[in-house]
C-alpha cells in the first residue's frame, strides 16, 4: 500500500466513509432532512475525487492510471470506463437519495441505516465497474447485492420482507453458481485476473468441435453468465425481478433498476470484452439469444400487468435485452467503429438511467401520496399532479424509444452497432428489437392513457417536497438533454469503451 494506492481507491474510500458517517449521524440526530442533505452533499467528495482522477487521465493521455508497485492495480483498473460508471452511479445514487426524502419518513427509525446501506451498495457498484479480477468482482458484487437485499426488506410489511427474502435467496444461489464458473476459469487459466485469463485463453488450443475450446470454459461461461444474468435481469434469469420490484421500497427499486443494472453491464463488458476477448466468436451468439429472449419476454408479459412497479420490472427486463444487443455487437470491423458495441451500451445505460429514474421518481411521488401502485389508480393524474404526470409520460415515451428523448438516440446507437457487425443474425436481432419496441409502446402508452384520459376518482392535488421535485426535474432534463444533445455523453462513452479494446 502506497499513498498512490490510497489515491487510486480514494473515491471508494470516500463513499464508504460517507456511508459510515451517515449511520453515525443518525445516532446523533434524527432529522431526515439532515441525513438527506449529508448523504447528498457528501457525494461531492467521491465525485470530486473521481473527477480528479479523470483529469489525471486526460493529462497523461493514457486510458488508465498505472504505477509501478501498486497493489491496488492488481485488482482494480482505474480507467475511463470505471470513471464513467463512477459518475453514472454517483448521479443515480444522488438523485435517489433526494427522492428518498419523502419516502423514508415511513420508516421512522433507522433512516441512517437506509442511506448508509444505499451508499455502501453504490460503493460496491463503483468497485464492480473498476474490478478486473474475479475475487474482487465477487466481493464487489456481494457488496452491491447484500445491502440492497436489506433495503428490499426494509419496509415493515410482509411484501417488503418477501421481496428482501427473494432477493437474498436468488442472489445467494446465483452467486454460488457464478462462483463455480469462476472456479473453473481459475482452474483452467490459473489466474483470476482478466488480462491474464485473456492471454491464457488466447494461447490455449481451440478445439474445432467444442465451442470455447473446452467443456470447462463452456460450462464456466454459461455459469458465469447465469450469475451475471441475475444481476442484469436478463432472461431466463429474470424471474425474481418483478416480484422484488413490486414489494421493495420504490426508491430502492429505482436505484436497483438503474445503478445495479449499470454495474452489472459494466461487469459483463469487462469480463467478456477483456477476459473472454479471444472467444468473442462463441459468446456473442449466446448474448444475442439472451437479448432476444429478454426483450420478448419482458415486453410480452408487461402487457398483462396492472401494477406499475411490476410493469416496470418487466420493462427493465426488456431493456436489459436491448442493452444485451449492444453487448453482443462484438465489432468485426476494425478502426474507429470497433468501440461501437460497448460504447453504445454505455450510452444506453446513461440514457436508460435518466429515463427510468424519471419514471420511478414520479412513481415514488405518486405512490407515496395515493398509497397504491395500481395503474388504474393513476386515473386523472394529469389533473391531480400535472408535473408528475407529464414527467412520467415523457419518461414512458422515452422508454418506448420515441424522440426527442435519451433512449431514442440510445436505441439508434445500439442498433447501429449491431448492424455494423455485418452479421445477419444481428440484423434479425435488431428487427426483433424494433418490433419489441412496438409491443412495448402498448403497455407504456396504456399508463399515459390512464393518466391523461381517464377521469380521476379523487380530485385532491398531489405533489412532493422540493428535493423530490428537484430530483425529478433533473432526471427529466437529463433525459431530454441526452435526446437532444447527446454529443458529450456519446464522446465519453466512446472514450471509455476504448479501454475494453486496448487489452485485446
Amino acid at each position, binding site marked *: 500500500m502506497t499513498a498512490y494506492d490510497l489515491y487510486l481507491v480514494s473515491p471508494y474510500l470516500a463513499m464508504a466513509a460517507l456511508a459510515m458517517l451517515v449511520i453515525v449521524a443518525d445516532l446523533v440526530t434524527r432529522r431526515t432532512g439532515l441525513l438527506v442533505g449529508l448523504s447528498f452533499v457528501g457525494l461531492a467528495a467521491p465525485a470530486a475525487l473521481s473527477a480528479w482522477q479523470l483529469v489525471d487521465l486526460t493529462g497523461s493521455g493514457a486510458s488508465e492510471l498505472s504505477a509501478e508497485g501498486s497493489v491496488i492495480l492488481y485488482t482494480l483498473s482505474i480507467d475511463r470506463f470505471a470513471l464513467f460508471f463512477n459518475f453514472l452511479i454517483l448521479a443515480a445514487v444522488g438523485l435517489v437519495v433526494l427522492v428518498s426524502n419523502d419516502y423514508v419518513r415511513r420508516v421512522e427509525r433507522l433512516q441512517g441505516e437506509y442511506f448508509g446501506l444505499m451508499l455502501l451498495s453504490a460503493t460496491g457498484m463503483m468497485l464492480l465497474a473498476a474490478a478486473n479480477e474475479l475475487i474482487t468482482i465477487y466481493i464487489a458484487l456481494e457488496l452491491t447485492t447484500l445491502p440492497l437485499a436489506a433495503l428490499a426488506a426494509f419496509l415493515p410489511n410482509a411484501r417488503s420482507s418477501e421481496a428482501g427474502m427473494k432477493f437474498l435467496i436468488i442472489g445467494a444461489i446465483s452467486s454460488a453458481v457464478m462462483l463455480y464458473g469462476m472456479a473453473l476459469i481459475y482452474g483452467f487459466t490459473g489466474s483470476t485476473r482478466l488480462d491474464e485469463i485473456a492471454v491464457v485463453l488466447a494461447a490455449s488450443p481451440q478445439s474445432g468441435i467444442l465451442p470455447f475450446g473446452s467443456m470447462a470454459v463452456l460450462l464456466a461461461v454459461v455459469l458465469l453468465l447465469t450469475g451475471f444474468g441475475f444481476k442484469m435481469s436478463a432472461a431466463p434469469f429474470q424471474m425474481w425481478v418483478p416480484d422484488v420490484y413490486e414489494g421493495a421500497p420504490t426508491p430502492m427499486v429505482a436505484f436497483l433498476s438503474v445503478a445495479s443494472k449499470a454495474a452489472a453491464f459494466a461487469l459483463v463488458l469487462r469480463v467478456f470484452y477483456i477476459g473472454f476477448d479471444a472467444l468473442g466468436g462463441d459468446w456473442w451468439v449466446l448474448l444475442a439469444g439472451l437479448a432476444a429472449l429478454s426483450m420478448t419476454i419482458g415486453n410480452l408479459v408487461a402487457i398483462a400487468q396492472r401494477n406499475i412497479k411490476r410493469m416496470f420490472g418487466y420493462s427493465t427486463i426488456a431493456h436489459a435485452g436491448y442493452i444485451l444487443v449492444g453487448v453482443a455487437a462484438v465489432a468485426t470491423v476494425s478502426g*474507429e*467503429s470497433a*468501440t*461501437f458495441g460497448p*460504447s453504445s451500451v454505455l450510452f444506453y445505460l446513461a440514457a436508460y438511467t435518466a429515463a427510468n429514474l424519471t419514471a420511478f421518481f414520479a412513481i415514488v411521488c405518486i405512490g407515496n401520496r395515493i398509497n397504491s401502485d395500481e395503474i388504474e389508480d393513476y386515473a386523472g393524474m394529469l389533473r391531480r399532479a400535472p408535473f408528475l404526470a407529464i414527467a412520467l409520460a415523457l419518461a414512458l*415515451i422515452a422508454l*418506448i424509444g*420515441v*424522440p*426527442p428523448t435519451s433512449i*431514442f*438516440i440510445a*436505441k*439508434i*446507437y445500439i*442498433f*447501429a*452497432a449491431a*448492424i*455494423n457487425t*455485418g452479421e445477419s443474425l444481428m*440484423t434479425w436481432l*435488431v*428487427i426483433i428489437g*424494433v*418490433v419489441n*419496441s*412496438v409491443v412495448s*409502446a*402498448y403497455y407504456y*402508452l396504456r399508463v399515459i*392513457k390512464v393518466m*391523461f*384520459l381517464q377521469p380521476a376518482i379523487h380530485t385532491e392535488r398531489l405533489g412532493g417536497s422540493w428535493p423530490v421535485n428537484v430530483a425529478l426535474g433533473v432526471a427529466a432534463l437529463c433525459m431530454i438533454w441526452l435526446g437532444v*444533445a*447527446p*454529443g458529450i455523453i*456519446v*464522446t465519453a462513452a*466512446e472514450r471509455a469503451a476504448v479501454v475494453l479494446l486496448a487489452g485485446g
Partner: protein
Amino acid sequence: MPTGFSGLLTATVFLPAVAALLLAFGLIRGDRNIRWFAAAVAAADLILSVIVFALFQPGGERFQLVDRFDWITTDTVQASYLLGVDGISAPLVMLTGLLGLCAVFVSFHISNRVREYFIWLFVLQTAVLGVFTALDFLLFFLFWEIELVPMYLLISTWGTGRREYSAMKFLIFTILGSAFMLVAIVAVFVSAGVGSFDMTRLLEPGGALDASRAALPMGVLFWLFFIAFAVKLPTWPVHTWLPDAHTDAPTAGSVMLAGVMLKMGGYGLLRINAGMFPEQLQQFALPIVALGVISVLYGAVVTMRQTDLKRLIAYSSVSHMGLVLIGLGSVAVVGGALTDAGLTGAAMQLFTHGTITGLLFVAVGILYEQTHTRHIPDLGGLANRMPIVSGAFLIAGAASLGLPLLSGFVSEILVFFGAFRAFPALTILAVLGIILAAGYILWMLQRTLFGPRPARWDDLTDASPAELVPVALLVISIVAVGVYPAWLTEVFRDGLEPIVSGYNAGLAGISR
C-alpha cells in the same frame, strides 16, 4: 453539402411549437382568446409557409433555404440540424400550413380542454413540417416519431366512438412501420462510406450509399423503408388503422391525418425510396404497382359498403393513395423525356389529395357538429339547409372522383400517363377505379345531400363564419390547382428532376 442558416424554415417549423409552449405555460388564458391566438399563429405559419413556397426557385440549388448547424459530432455519430426544401417538399410545407390553419378553424367549436387541444395541434404541425423539411435522417426520424404523440392524444381525448382503440391502433401501426424505418436508417448510417445521417449526400445521384458496401443488401433496405412509408400511406394490407383513426378522430385530427400525415408516407417514398434506391425501385416496380392497384380497387370496393361518412372518406383515401404507388412504379421504364410524369403525378397526388380530403373532412365535421351523426342512412336532403357545406361537399367530391379543372384530375392523369408506359394492363385496371370512385362519391352525395330531408334536420344551419374560412381556402386551392396546375407541377418537377435524371442517365439501359 448545403450549408447556411437563413432561419426562415426554422421559424416556419417551430412557430407552432413556440405557440404551443406559450399556451402550455398559460400565457394565454380564456377559451376565446386561445382560439383566436391559435388562429393568428396558424395564419402566420401559413404565411410563412407560402413565403417558403414563393421563395423556392425552381432551377436553382436543389435544396434551398437551408438551415444547418452541427448537432452531434462524435467519433462514431455525426448528425446535424439540417432543414431545407426542394421541389418535393416546398409544396408540402405550404400544404401543411394551409391545412394547419384549416384545422384551427374547424376546431373553434371545441369546448373541452381547449388549451391542451391547441397545444397538441400545434405540436403536431411542427412535427409534420419538420418531417417535410428535415434533411438529416436522425432529425427526420425524430419529427416522424414526435408526430405520433399529439395525434394519439387528439384522437383519444377529443375523438368520438371507439377513440381509444382507434388511437392505439393508429399508434401501434405507425410505430411498427417506423420501427422498420429505424432499422433501415441505422443500416444506412453504418454502411461503409456513409457515416453520417446527412440525407443530401445520399440523395445525390450515385450518392454515398454504395450497394457493395451497404450494411444490409440494398433490396432489404428498400423494403424496410417501404414498409414504414406504406403503413403511413397507407397501402393495402396495412391500411386498417386508417378507417378507425379517421372515423374516431376529431375533425381537425382527420383533416391533419388525411391531409398531411398520409403525405408523410408518400413523401418518404419519393424522397427516400425513389431518391436513394433507384435501382431497387425499378427492380421492385411490379409488386409496388400491383400493391397500388390492389389498394385502388380494393379501397374503392370497400368504400362502397361504408355507411359512416368519415369511414367512407377514409377508405377512399386508401384507394387514392394507391395511385401514389402506381406513380412511383412508373419508373420501371425509363428513358425519353416522359419518365417524370408518373413521379410528378404521385407528388401531385399528395398535394391534391391533401386539399380534397381535407375539404371533405371539414365538410363532414361541420355536418357532424350540427347533426351529431355520420351515419349516411340517417342523413339526406341537407342541400337545402346547408348550401355552402353542400357546395363544399360537391366540389370536394367532384375533385375526389377526378373531375377536370379540379385538382384531383391532374394528379390522376399524370399517374396514369406515367404508369401506362411501364404496366399497361395494371394501369387499365387502376383506371377502372375511377368508375368506382364516381360510384361511391355520388352515392354518398345522393344519400347525404339530396333526396327528401327527414324532418329532424329542418333546423340545421349552414357553416358559421369561422368554418367558412377553411372551406373557402380549400376550395380555392382545389380550383387553383385544377385550373392551372403548372404552378405546382413545375415545382414538383424541379424537385424530381435529380431523381429522374439519375434514372435517365444511369439506368436507361435497363428499360424494357
